[in-house]
């Protein structure tokens, strides 16, 4: 049986959260100071929790013996449908915070809409995620401002991060078939409509941070169709190692 559109939709949201969480977890014991280590792993924990909720729901929609773990650990690169920005490597502390800022700002707007979803379960997940996300936004935006208006070195690092990551932001607002159908049924969100507000929030943050909004460049995309950067394969082979190496074991 072909997968339902709702399943694909929920799965893609789960993949976004899962891959972002896995990336942030890689900061463990490597943050610039110990307090920040805890802050980053807190965000990672929230995102794993969110991934778990989406994926459990997706597994339920898929039916059979599918579980959230099955979806997380037994699909390959082409079957993951996360946005490319989520899989982008952590880089330095500025790179990570810029990536977080782009995503947190997006989710701020996205989740506000998803709360109104006709699908009760999605709406409930969004309600929980919304509270967490507003803290994440507070964290990433305050860091981008500090780094932007900190030293020359930090300003240049965060500006470089902005310029490098900008090409992944177009995908946030792309509407594929699944999005269009879900949005027309008032289950999903019209991503395209969020763009002006997203840009205005980002502009405010960057202005306060004395940073420049990057020029619009070539925007890359493909994640929703399973076309990924080469980084995702490594992230998955690391994450899925035990489940793949011992397929009959329970953990």
């Amino acid at each position, binding site marked *: 049986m072909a997968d339902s559109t709702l399943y694909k939709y929920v799965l893609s949201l789960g993949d976004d959260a899962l891959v972002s969480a896995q990336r942030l977890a890689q900061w463990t*014991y490597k*943050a610039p100071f110990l307090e920040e280590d805890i802050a980053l792993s807190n965000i990672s*924990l929230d995102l794993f929790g969110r991934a778990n909720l989406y994926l459990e729901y997706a597994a339920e929609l898929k039916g059979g013996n599918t579980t959230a773990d099955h979806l997380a650990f037994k699909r390959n690169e082409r079957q993951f449908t996360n946005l490319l920005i989520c899989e982008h490597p952590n880089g330095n502390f500025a790179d990570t915070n810029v990536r977080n800022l782009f995503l947190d700002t997006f989710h701020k707007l996205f989740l506000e809409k998803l709360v109104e979803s006709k699908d009760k379960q999605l709406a409930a997940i969004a309600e929980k995620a919304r509270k967490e996300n507003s803290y994440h936004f507070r964290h990433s935006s305050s860091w981008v401002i500090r780094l932007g208006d900190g030293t020359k070195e930090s300003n240049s690092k965060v500006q470089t991060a902005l310029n490098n990551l900008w090409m992944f932001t177009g995908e946030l607002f792309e509407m594929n078939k699944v999005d269009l159908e879900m949005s027309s049924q008032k289950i999903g969100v019209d991503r395209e409509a969020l763009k002006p507000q997203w840009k205005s929030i980002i502009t405010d943050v960057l202005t306060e941070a004395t940073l420049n909004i990057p020029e619009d460049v070539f925007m890359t995309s493909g994640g929703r169709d399973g076309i990924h950067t080469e980084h995702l394969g490594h992230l998955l082979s*690391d994450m899925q*190692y035990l489940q793949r190496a011992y397929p009959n074991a329970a953990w």
Partner: protein
Amino acid sequence: MSTTQETTFQGKIDKGLKIEPRDWMPDKYRTHLIRQISQHAHSEVIGMQPEGNWITRAPSLRAKMVLIAKVQDEAGHGLYLYSACETLGITRDELISQLHTGKAKYSNIFNYPTLTWADIGAIGWLVDGAAIVNQQSLRGTSYGPYSRAMIRICKEESFHQRQGYEIMSKMANGTPEQQEMAQDALDRWWWPSLMMFGPHDLDSAHTSNAMNWKIKRETNDELRQLFVDRSVKQADLIGLKIPDPDLKWNQETRHYEFGEIDWDEFWKVINGDGFCNKERLNNHTTAHTKGQWVREAALAYAEKRNNGVNHE
């Protein structure tokens, strides 16, 4: 040093009262505390590495979240302890620098590698188990901030050992490969866990003062015995074998007798020749050095915005 002050100080301790940061205390008491608390804090922080090594590979979403929360607690406990240590008039910077130069030690146990997922079980069950025995005893320590940190830590640690034991029992009852990993992990972690309690009391340079000042409340050997008694039964329950041919129950003392620890190995690892010593320190130093520009930026920003300082 005035004798009256010393008498008042010891009097307070004998009465079971706590010493607070601004109270008079002998220099040696202060030095002892800084050494012990910072070693304890560094152990929590370096201890994040062997477990952090498995966060990205944890085999289920649940296992991943539990492990992150646990490693995060370790960072938190490190911070509670640094915070207690700083009340003794030493800065975090100085403490970190002592760690990097090798002046301050951390627990030997974290110089062993985590090779399989069962090692994460063994760490939670045995290493945290041993740590908890020690920490519960330290709740009654005479220095107020240290005691308060330990009380908080003990409350939070209670899930850590269960998490490890749960992994071990799942694996010990799992596929043959999992069983093998579980037993292998126990074999490798058992003796280093016993070493965590430190040398025999007779050989320990620090025990006597520490007992008089009630910094320590029970001796290394007493605590080690308590740990062995608990762990043997727990291992039996999940069908794992403690790797000690001399282990036997003594009906008279109502305790387990166990074999002699390899103290040569203990001293070798303490003095830097353990399996992961260089790597653990190197990871910590690298993260600290790489974070330098971030801390500089944050301070520069606070200065510009007058955001961290006096007036608003």
